[in-house]
């Protein structure tokens, strides 16, 4: 196995990619911009973002090229393929060698892909814990997995795509503070849970409410979450 060094948080390339993605979030078409940045920032040929609602319902919101769009549409029509699996299981499904993948996994999809310039498909669910909001699918013309550095950037894109899609779904305006939602802060997730229980609203709306309150009061989402978890701020005070 080739050595895959863990990403360096201060890596210059990663920092540049982060800046570019932040910029993409602030434009008029954040989802489209995030989609296009996949092709620019990592060695993939195309990308698409779909929004998932109820069970097995998916709506493609953007794609960088015809083949990306076709890969996505085909999978949701046939009801099988890496993106469908990733959505169903809520876990990434990464297929670095599509022509060499076992045919029994997706017989119809595999057949449809024969002769196409699709060597690899990487399907990532866009989710925050139990909040499932969509899918990001990437394809490469030739088989091959990503290097450690490319993977780190691809995962950053996944984070930003999730954020852009959350903004899109919950109808919030783009802004400086809305470009910030650290995944590793457990209190943000705990506070989201508390809002679900207190206000009786779905999880995605609870997270949107938390972000909206932080934005409206000019505070960091971490601080608001901290106050809710420590019971200094009542979830009802966020009820609009």
């Amino acid at each position, binding site marked *: 196995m080739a050595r895959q060094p863990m990403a360096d948080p201060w890596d210059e390339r990663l920092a540049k990619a982060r800046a570019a993605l932040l910029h993409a979030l602030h434009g008029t078409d954040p989802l489209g911009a995030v989609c296009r940045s996949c092709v620019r920032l990592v060695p993939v040929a195309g990308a698409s973002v779909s929004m998932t609602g109820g069970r097995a319902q998916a709506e493609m919101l953007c794609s960088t090229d015809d083949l990306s769009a076709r890969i996505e549409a085909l999978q949701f029509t046939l009801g099988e393929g890496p993106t469908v699996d990733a959505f169903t299981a809520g876990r990434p499904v990464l297929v670095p060698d599509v022509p060499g993948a076992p045919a029994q996994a997706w017989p119809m999809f595999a057949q449809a892909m024969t002769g196409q310039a699709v060597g690899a498909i990487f399907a990532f*669910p866009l989710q925050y814990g139990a909040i499932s909001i969509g899918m990001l699918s990437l394809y490469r013309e030739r088989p091959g997995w990503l290097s450690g550095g490319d993977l780190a950037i691809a995962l950053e894109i996944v984070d930003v795509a999730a954020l852009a899609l959350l903004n899109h779904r919950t109808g919030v305006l783009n802004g400086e503070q809305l470009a910030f939602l650290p995944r590793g802060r457990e209190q943000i997730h705990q506070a989201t*849970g508390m809002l679900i229980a207190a206000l009786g609203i779905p999880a995605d709306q609870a997270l949107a409410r938390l972000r909206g309150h932080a934005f409206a009061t000019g505070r960091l989402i971490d601080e608001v979450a901290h106050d809710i978890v420590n019971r200094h701020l009542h979830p009802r005070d966020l009820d609009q």
Partner: protein
Amino acid sequence: MSTPPSSTQRESRLLEAFVQMADTLVDDYDIAEMLHQLAQYCVRLLNAAAAGLLLSDQRGGLQVMASSSEQTRLLELFQIQANEGPCLDCVRTGEPVHVPDLTEMTGRWPSFAPEALHEGFAAVYAIPLRLRQDTIGALNLFNTGPGPLPAADVEVARALADTATIGILQERAIRRGEVLTEQLQTALNNRIAIEQAKGVLAYAANLDMDRAFQALRSYSRNHNIRLTEIAHRLVTGTLTPADIVATGGPA
């Protein structure tokens, strides 16, 4: 703190722990639950005051996966290390980091060291979770008294760290990098779902976060449903807080 176990006591506890872990690993198990048990073993076997497991998010950061206690302040102490501290250094170098005296490290870790001292800890150790050349995370141990980790404990800590690595990667033959990414990213996201579920239960049943976690675990064990699955159901509303508190609440 309890007195350190005698060597015979310790040997039998060790044996018991590894037999139980091996039992878990051959069954259909939940990574979140397995890592929580492992953190508990660390505290018991190594006589540590607290233990936690952090995983690389593969973007240059770290995320808490398990802790010997789900007290908010302890979780925060682990989480600070996403930015600085022994775990970050350990994951970046792939080498163990031993800090027998935290007071000497306030210059190196200006956020982490004072915070850890404030919580009453004097020494900290980070042991890498290694898969061949990759470091996928770290096992973090805290002691309330200063001093090095005894040589025998270093061995045990390493064995527990290796067990965690095997557990995270599950039965799959992780020869390829993409499978490692699938496993790590899924484990990290499931931990977020557990935090969300803790929040739901903490509010609905008026519990602190540690109690909420224990209630989720009890329900999981009593009903033989994975902790992660319960967390998802509770957050999405297919399971209610009343279900959990009524039938599988804290002992």
